[in-house]
C-alpha cells in the first residue's frame, strides 16, 4: 500500500522538472514529496479520470507528456507515475527559446 506521503496524494502537483517539490492544492502552499498531512487522499485511477474530465488533461511524470484521453491514462497509469496536475516553472518562457 502506498505511503501516505504527498508524493502519492492527489492534491500534490509536482514541479515539471523537479517533481520532488510542488504545490499542494488542498493546503494551497508549497509541498515536498515526503510531506504528510491529514488531508492526504491517495492518487487513484478514478481520481485521475475525474481530473482528466474536469481539466481536460493529466500528466505522466515518467514520460513527460500530457495525457488527454481515458485509454492513454489507463495505459500510463499501470506502470507510470501519473499526476492530476503539474507546476510549470515561470522561467520556462525565458529559458526555452522559440524554435520555429
Amino acid at each position, binding site marked *: 500500500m502506498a505511503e501516505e506521503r504527498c508524493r502519492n496524494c492527489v492534491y500534490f502537483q509536482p*514541479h*515539471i*522538472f*523537479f517533481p*520532488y*517539490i*510542488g*504545490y499542494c492544492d488542498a493546503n494551497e*502552499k*508549497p509541498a*515536498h514529496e515526503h510531506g504528510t498531512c491529514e488531508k492526504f487522499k491517495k492518487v487513484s485511477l478514478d481520481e485521475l479520470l475525474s481530473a482528466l474530465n474536469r481539466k481536460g488533461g493529466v500528466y505522466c511524470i*515518467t*514520460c*513527460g*507528456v500530457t495525457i488527454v484521453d481515458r485509454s492513454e491514462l489507463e495505459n500510463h497509469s499501470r506502470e507510470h507515475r501519473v499526476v492530476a496536475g503539474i*507546476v*510549470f*516553472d*515561470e*522561467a*520556462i518562457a*525565458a*529559458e*526555452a*527559446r*522559440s*524554435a*520555429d
Partner: protein
Amino acid sequence: MSYSELSILLGGPQGSGLETAMLMLSRALAYRGYGVLADREYFSNITGRHSYVLIAVSTRRLPRSLTYPVQLLVAMDAETIFTHFENVDVGSVLVYDKEVEAKKLTELSSMEDALRGRISNNLRTSMLGDDVSSLLKSFESRRVTTIGISYQEVLKELVERFSLDPRTLSKYVSGIVTSSAALILGLDREALRYGFESVFRGRATVVEQNMYLADLVWKELREFEGLLKLKKPEIDVEKVLVATGNDVVAMAKVVSGLRYQSYYPITPAADESFLLEKYELSEVGGTIVGPIVVLQTEDEIAAIASAIGASLVGARSATATSGPGFDLMVEGVSWAGMNEVPVVITYYQRGGPSTGLPTRGSQSDLLSSVFSAHGEFAKVVLSSGDHLDVFYDTIEAFNIAEKYQVPVIHLLDKFLANSTATLPLPDLNTVKIDRGLLSKGQEGYKRFSLDSLVSPRVFLGTPGIVMWYTGDEHDELGHISEDPVNRVRMYSKRIKKLQLIEEEVPRDIKLRVYGHVRGDFCLIGWGSVKGVALDALEVLEKKGYRGAYIEVKMLWPFPAREFLEAIDGVELKRLIAVEHSYGVNIVALISMATGLVISKKVAKFSGRPIVLSELVPAVENLLTTDANYVVLEYGE
C-alpha cells in the same frame, strides 16, 4: 594545483535554469577578469529535452574556441551524466544530484532513442551497468572527483525558509549549479553575488535567496573549494561586455542609427529583435534621440517588404531572419536590387534544408545567400568571425548598403548568435556612419539618374519631389520601360556597382590573413570558423606545423584579387577549406571567382560547433595523409 584554462559543461532539461546558470557563472567569471566563451546547445522542442552549455574559461585571454574534454561537469539530471560521461577529462570534477544515482538509462523519457542506443552500446563495450551509480564508479578509474549534492534537500530547505512558490524553482536550481561551479573554480562570494545581481537585476529578494542557497551549497561542499582553482587572470582588457552574438548585433544596430527593424520570430534570429524591442526608445542624456520601430510582421515576406518601405522613406532599415525566413524574402531582395534600395538582412544560418535543425548551427546557406533572388543585380554578402567583428560589421553593412544603394546580407550563424562571449568594449571612436549620396532633390529629380552608378537618393515623401518605384524595368524617373536601349543601360548600371564595391571597400572588410601564409598549410574559412581556426594555428605550431588562416569576410562580391594576393606562392595542396557544411561551399565560390580548385576540406554538418580538439587532428590528417575530405562529428 591551479588552472589557466578550463572547459566546463553544464547540463540539464531545457527550461530548468540552465540559461540562467550560464549567464550568472559567465558574469561572475568576467567580473573577476576571466575570459569566457559559452555555447548553448538545445533542442527545438519547447521544454524538457536535454540542453547543455559548453564553456571555455581562460585566465590568459578572451577565449576564441571551445574544446573537449571538459574538466568540470555540472549535471542537473541523470541524462546529462549519461550523455556526457565520455566528454569528461581524466582528473576532472563531476557535480551531480545525489537523487539520480539509481536512475537507469532506460528511464530517461526525454532522450532520443538513437542516442540511448549509442550510449547503451558504449556502456556494454565498457562493461558498465546502465545506471548512474555504475557510471559514477567508472569515474574512479579516470580519477574523476564525483561530488554528489542533494538538490532536493537544498531546495526543500530553501522553499521552507522562504515559502517559495514552486513555479520559481528553476531560479534556484540555476543557483545550485552556479554556486557549486563557482566554489570549485575558487570564485569568491562577491563575484558570485555580482553574477546573481546582474541576472536578477532589480529583484533583490531573489538575489538574497540565491545567496542563502549558495551558502547552503558551499557549506555542504566546503571540502571541494578550489578543487579546480583558476589562476589569477592576466587578461589585459580593462572592461568587457558579456553578450551573445544576437545581443551584439542589436547593440550595433542601435549605434548605427537603425530606425526600423522588422522580423518574424525564428530561431536563432529572434533574440536580436526581442532585445531591440526593449530599446525602441533611445534616450541619451535624458533626451529621446529617436525611436527605433521594431515590428513583428505576419511573415517574412512582409518583413522584407516593410523594411524596404522604411528604407525608401529614409530610415536606416533592417530585418533579421534565418534560412526558412530568408527563402521567403528573396523576391523582396530582388525588388530591392531592382530599385536600388539600401536594406540590411541579418541572416542567422541554422541547419537546413527546410526547418532542418532549427536550434543547431550551420554555414550551409553560403551559396543560397550569394545567389539568392532572380535576375542579376548588385548585392553584398558580408560575414563576421567573432562577437567583436559582428559589432563593427553590422555597422559596416548599413554603410555599404546606403553608400552603394544595394541590399546587404550580413551572414551569421547560430554559433555566433547563441554563444555568450566576453569581448572588449567596441571603440566607438572608430565607428563611422556613411549614409551615402543623399539629396534634397530638385525639379525633374531622377531617382535612377544614369549620370553615375550611384544616383543621389531623395527620401520618399520629401515635399515637392516625385519619384516612382516599381518591380518592372524603369527609366531614370522610375517609370516602367521595356525599351531595349534603356534596359541595357539601367541593367548595367545596377550590376556595375559590384565593380565599384570591389574597388572601394577596404581590404580589411573583404579579407583578413592571420599567421604564416607561406608555411606548411593555409586554412581558409569564413564566419564563426575564425576562432577555432586561429586557436588551431597555435596548437599546430607547437606540433611543428606553421600555418595561416585566411578569413574571407566579404563573400560577395568575392574579393578575388585580394584572395589571390594572399595566397601568392602557396601551393594549392597546402590550402585547406573549413566550413560548417557538407560541401565546404567556400571552395565553389573561390573556384568560380579565381579558377582555383581547392581539394582539401574539413566539413562539419552535425549541427554542433567545430571544437579545437577535433579540428587540430583533422588538419594533421590532411597534412600527413592522402586524405582530402575530413568530416568532423564530435559532440552530442
